């Protein structure tokens, strides 16, 4: 086990969309090697925090640091930080005009200047890891949602990131495809990847998370290991939420 150290630190982060404040003085930190699951009602700010970490959604005030370096608009630093932080989206967002292989190799070839042959080799290793080596030359539209999401995970892993952010990775999937994606994520967690997962999959949170954060109206309302979190939810809002999610 590596020594526990905060890799991403959020300090009094605020963010508003117009008059609506989605993040209110959020302070927390994410440690290397830890799997954090963020749950909460929609609109509670959990996705916004995730998107603020890699600055897809710039925050208004407060600071976010990744490995001690603040996240700002400086393009060079930001690009370096983004390649250290992989992201998986709810809607997969695979590049529709590129084959599965090219989706995965694009970033390493452009950013790390990896030669195509070598990038392809590395991509095939990743595709085997997510169980899709036979689909390397297909295009995204030829794959099921679950397969697309697994490719999206492989694409994010191709930059060998230090952290993986998952923004509701299974919310757009048919129920029978949820497990194949969760299996890949479980495998990643077992390999020691630092992960921050926004999800409604309570089973996954219980089983895989080291820590569960509950977001409520832009604040972190509860922060506990999964066993404590689910057995002793702290307040009634959380209890009601867990009840609705059927966990």
């Amino acid at each position, binding site marked *: 086990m590596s020594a526990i150290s905060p890799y991403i630190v959020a300090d009094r982060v605020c963010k508003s969309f117009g008059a609506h404040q989605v993040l209110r003085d959020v302070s927390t930190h994410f440690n290397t090697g830890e799997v954090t699951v963020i749950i909460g009602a929609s609109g509670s700010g959990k996705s916004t925090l995730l998107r603020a970490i890699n600055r897809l959604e710039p925050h208004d005030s407060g600071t976010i640091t990744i490995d001690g370096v603040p996240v700002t608009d400086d393009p060079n630093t930001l690009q370096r930080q983004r390649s250290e*932080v992989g992201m998986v989206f709810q809607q997969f967002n695979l590049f529709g*005009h590129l084959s599965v292989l090219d989706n995965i190799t694009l970033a390493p070839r452009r950013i790390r200047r990896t030669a195509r042959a070598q990038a392809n080799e590395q991509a095939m290793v990743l595709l085997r890891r997510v169980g899709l080596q036979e689909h390397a030359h297909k295009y995204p539209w030829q794959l099921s949602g679950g397969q697309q999401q697994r490719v999206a995970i492989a694409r994010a892993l191709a*930059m060998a990131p230090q952290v993986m952010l998952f923004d509701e990775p299974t919310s757009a999937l048919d129920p029978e495809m949820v497990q194949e994606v969760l299996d890949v994520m479980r495998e990643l967690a077992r390999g020691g990847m630092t992960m921050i997962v926004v999800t409604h999959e309570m089973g996954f949170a219980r089983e895989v998370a080291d820590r569960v954060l509950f977001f409520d109206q832009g604040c972190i309302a509860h922060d506990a290991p999964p066993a404590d979190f689910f057995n002793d939810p702290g307040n009634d809002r959380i209890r009601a939420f867990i009840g609705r999610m059927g966990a």
Partner: protein
Amino acid sequence: MLIALWPHRWSRQQRSNATLVSALVLTVFALALLGQVLSFLPEPIGPNAQAFSAGARTTLWLTLVSGSVGLALGTGAALARTARWAAVRWVASFYIWAIRGTPLLVQILFVYFALPVLVPGLNLPDFAAAVVALALNVGAYNAEAIRAGLLAVPRGQTEAARALGLGRTHVFFDVVFPQAFKISLPPLVSNFVALLKDSSLAYAIGVVELTNVGNRIQSATFQPIATLTTVAVTYLLLTTLVTQISNAIEYRFDVEGRNQ
């Protein structure tokens, strides 16, 4: 049309390449042989076959040059219209507004006659003046076609590319532009075909292109039906060939297999 000729076991790219190459070869052949084929026809076409074929070459050349410049201009103007700086957006909007709101014939006459007065020393020869006017014109229409394509690329695509750490240039050239271009291609082809026909207006400033040739022969021989039919059929031949080329390009980008 041509695409259907190739065996189905060929890959999409092979079929696209085969179509592209054969359409280009056909175009070159058509232009090279047009004069000879027309020379077999009776009066008044036969004796004037070389003039027709030279006119057709001028028309195609005029279209290709102004079409290429217009594509670059259209891409630039589309980017300018979606730029972050208001002044840049405003200039692009003004350009599109002015060009789309005035007749092409006036634009051609303006570049040829008014520009030398406004900018002393800028005396463009008739062909160059026609190229400038046609390129400016098609550029404005291309700009809107390309802008529509750019706006149609889902936001998630740029977000995913940025999240991977790709810089602005790579996000644009590797992710946004290829997808936008595919969406813009059909309207761009329409613009190009329209340009091929609109190039006939260069006749007004004395460019000896296909329509001009036909009109001269028509008025010299008093045989409007034969000459103007020849002109029309030659335009039809050129637009058909251009459409084959553009179909091949469209087919190449059709990774989803929607154009069967």
